[in-house]
């Protein structure tokens, strides 16, 4: 088991309940900017992250279905300088075209920057648990999407992961 819970890597400052951007690249940028605003990344680190994430996204969508996407850098080496996993989460009520695998718009976006591949796999597992089929995951996606504040988003994710993939 991982030493820390995934939710501990989701900070209120990195939760955006109403994304202003409505395109895939702009959303990724808006989420990466949250890392800069909080002091988690320098502008230079953000720029490096952005190049890698967009490159990865162009190779194959990270829109995994059911309105969820998890953009991430092409390789962990691109964010090797980070001391820990950074996760930014954004919601967009009217959806974003992420060219998702199911062709549907994306409403919940997780930007995941992990310097460790193993930790990335732990995060991706939780995001997959939220995106999976079935009524329980669907209920939690609804709860997350209805969050109106950063704190509510974080709480919803914490509860969702506690039930879906502790």
């Amino acid at each position: 088991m991982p030493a820390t819970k995934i939710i501990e890597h989701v900070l209120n400052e990195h939760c955006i309940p109403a994304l202003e951007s409505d395109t895939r690249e702009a959303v990724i940028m808006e989420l990466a900017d949250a890392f800069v605003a909080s002091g988690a990344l320098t502008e230079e680190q953000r720029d490096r992250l952005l190049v890698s994430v967009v490159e990865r996204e162009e190779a194959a969508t990270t829109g995994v279905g059911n309105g969820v996407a998890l953009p991430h850098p092409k390789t962990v080496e691109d964010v090797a300088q980070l001391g820990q996993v950074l996760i930014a989460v954004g919601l967009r009520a009217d959806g974003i075209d992420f060219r998702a695998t199911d062709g549907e718009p994306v409403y919940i976006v997780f930007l995941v920057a992990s310097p460790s591949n193993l930790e990335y796999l732990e995060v991706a597992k939780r995001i997959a648990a939220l995106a999976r089929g079935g009524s329980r995951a669907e209920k939690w996606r609804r709860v997350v999407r209805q969050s109106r504040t950063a704190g509510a988003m974080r709480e919803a994710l914490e509860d969702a992961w506690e039930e879906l993939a502790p």
Partner: protein
Amino acid sequence: MQTPGSQPVTEGSDQVVRARVTMGYDRGMHARPALLLAQRAREFQADVALVLISCPVDISTPPGTRADAKSMLDLMFLQAPRGSELDVEAVGADAEAAVEAIEALFRDRFGIRD
């Protein structure tokens, strides 16, 4: 890297075709390999599953966890970092071909070259 050849095993009335594979892709069960696997598995009528047998490092997914190989999200739940061993199991008319196709994908590291 993996045990060659799939072996039909009779279990009850269903013929289960099973083969052991090893995750040779550096990054493990990321979204991309999961998607490629699911797409390939969906080409077959057989029910295809992947079962995590062992993992060389400590992860939260326990051995024995089973995923529907036709579901990308189910597959991501396995985590399966590099070096993990998994069983491919298929039941159905084209089970043998399905297992062979999944084995080939693992052998080719999902065809991902970057």
